[in-house]
């Protein structure tokens, strides 16, 4: 009973619980490990569903044979060239966004921080629209790097302004700087889109967010960045835990606050930039996943971050599968599905109990 009580308790209770006898801590660790195993299971099932279900219904047995022994038939082409890449993209993007969301909420100590707030989405959007408008690039291969660079620049600008003066970025100024930069970047984006129909056409389809990549080669392009971002982000965990105690305490404990912040922002920018470049600004994962993960793990970032990554992957894949099923033979983009499925779930979660506060 008392164990389930600590699940959603504020960090204050958790810190009070720390000096208690070892058995309780051991129990919590066991529960977290169990949760991790369950999440892995969910992820595996989501991957299988993502490969098995699609616009063309292929019997499960055929899916399996075309997976293990591709014969060049139509079915194996669909599985290998369309569904498998899509699944891989879903896993990568979901993990990237889930982790980035947890990092963002940790650094800004703001429960509603998401890529849109830190100026990253708008940076990517402006760059993509610029690529289409000025250079006439309209293939994913072409504008992926623009989106990436835009996201990076947006994030760096927000961080630079938020930490101007050498005092380091505080959560509120970081978030406000993010909103200001977002608005500033949105303005030319809107202006370009409104003056050029081709840009608008690309922009509106990019903006909804879809993981249906047409070229599997894209995966190899973003893979190094996502992996690097994941490693950087996970390395940020203990620093974030210290920062949660307040900057002064963290400094007193010997943590290099500035470096933690820089590392975090770099990881966020790389993760969000890479995913926005491939599938547009998928908005819901980074926002919701950390709240669900915190519900299982409490506020300890060493657990919260990997949980968020795993949960993000599963959520994106499942939403994508549902999106393929609801509007057959057409499909609803994953960005839209995530909001339609995720928002009611998120609201129910917020209503049900006190969430862990940041």
């Amino acid at each position: 009973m008392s164990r389930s009580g600590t699940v959603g308790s504020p960090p204050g209770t958790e810190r009070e619980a720390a000096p208690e006898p070892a058995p309780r801590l051991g129990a919590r660790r066991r529960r977290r490990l169990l949760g991790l195993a369950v999440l892995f299971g969910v992820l595996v099932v989501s991957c299988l569903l993502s490969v098995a279900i699609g616009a063309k219904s292929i019997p499960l047995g055929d899916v399996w044979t075309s997976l293990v022994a591709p014969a060049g038939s139509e079915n194996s082409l669909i599985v290998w060239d369309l569904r498998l890449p899509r699944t891989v993209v879903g896993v990568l993007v979901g993990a990237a966004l889930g982790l980035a969301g947890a990092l963002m909420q940790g650094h800004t100590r703001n429960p509603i921080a998401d890529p849109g707030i830190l100026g990253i989405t708008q940076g990517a959007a402006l760059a993509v629209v610029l690529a289409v408008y000025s250079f006439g690039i309209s293939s994913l291969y072409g504008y992926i790097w623009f989106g990436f660079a835009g996201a990076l620049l947006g994030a760096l600008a927000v961080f630079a302004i938020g930490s101007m003066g050498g005092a380091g970025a505080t959560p509120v100024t970081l978030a406000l700087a993010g909103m200001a930069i977002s608005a500033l970047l949105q303005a030319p984006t809107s202006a370009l889109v409104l003056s050029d129909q081709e840009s608008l056409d690309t922009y509106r389809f990019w903006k909804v967010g879809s993981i249906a990549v047409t070229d599997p080669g894209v995966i190899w392009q973003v893979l190094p960045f996502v992996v690097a971002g994941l490693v950087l982000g996970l390395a940020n965990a203990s620093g974030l835990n210290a920062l949660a105690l307040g900057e002064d305490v963290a400094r007193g404990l010997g943590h290099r606050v500035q470096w933690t912040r820089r590392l975090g922002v770099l990881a966020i920018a790389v993760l969000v930039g890479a995913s926005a470049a491939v599938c547009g600004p998928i908005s819901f994962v980074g926002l919701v996943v950390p709240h669900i993960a915190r519900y299982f793990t409490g506020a300890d970032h060493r657990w919260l971050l990997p949980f968020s990554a795993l949960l993000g992957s599963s959520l994106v894949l499942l939403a994508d599968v549902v999106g393929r099923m609801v509007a057959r033979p057409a499909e609803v983009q994953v960005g839209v599905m995530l909001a339609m499925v995720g928002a009611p779930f998120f609201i129910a979660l917020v209503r049900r109990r006190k969430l862990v506060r940041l």
Partner: protein
Amino acid sequence: MTRVLDAPQQVPGRSPLRLGRVSGVFRVRPMLVLLGGLVVLLGGVLLDIGLGEYQLSPGQVLVTLFGGGDYADQYVVFGLRMPRALTAVLVGAALGLAGAITQAVARNPLASPDMLGITSGAGAAAVLVIVFGGTAGALGGLAEAVGLPVVALVGGLLAGFAIYGLAYRGGVDSYRIVLVGVGITALAGNAIYWLLTVGDVNDAGRAMVWLTGSLNARGWDHVVPTAIALAVLLPMTLVGAHSLGALQFDDDTVRGIGVRVNLARGVLLLAAVVLASIATAAAGPVQFVALAAPQIALRLSRSSRPPLVASLVFGGALVVAADLLSRTAFGAAEMPVGIVTAILGAPYLIYLLIRRYREDRA
């Protein structure tokens, strides 16, 4: 007992002002900031009415406003530019006030009506009508009958009530209301983008103009409803704002000092929802004003929470200045006003953020 209460309680360094049951402290800086904002606002309105293809000096504008000028002056001022300028003022004022209320109640600078899903709700309803208006007969007819602003108003109110209803659990926790609002924003925002992909590219273009916030061809029929809403809601919020100071504390403390938390919070939030919805109905979701105006007012007057009246004035001034630029600075082409509010407001907010750090270090 009574003697203790009767004894004038001194705030160190300030002289208290008392008027019956109402009391307050006079602070010089917020007053100067407010006056400065009013001067900018009035100057902006005069210029906004005067400048354009048919040029009038501020003096001529004033003369015309008081009944002078020839027929052409009268027509340009009263028929074209004044309703538009007034719409700008009122929309900005309503957004600034709504933003100040929500930011103060939720104790979060990001909790502007944009983030709480009210403007997205209004936007989604409007885009639905714009995208399907031409093709889907029943919906198109309905939209034509009631008009886009009404549809947007209904959408905004629906989103507002949904947020309040969903966040209500024997009371409304400010943290929960922000999170629920974010959920609704995500829902409505994604609905908007999806609707944009469903429709024809021309409809998507029209919807984008509306979504950016535009004052093009706004007339008296936009001024009147917004003015009425402000006239009713401003006194209401000023009364409710008396308890805003108490809402800074946690719920138990607030109850302890005898403020009816849920009533105060509910009334204030309802006012904010109606204000934001009316503003959005009149000009589309003009981005950033509800977020920036209260923050700029807060930082200039150095108060502990967003000042309501100053936020209202700054909101109005921001949108009027943006309208002035949107009509004159881009040659023949006219930028939607929402783009210009961002270009004007964002750098200033950034400047304030940076300057505060310099002062902290000095």
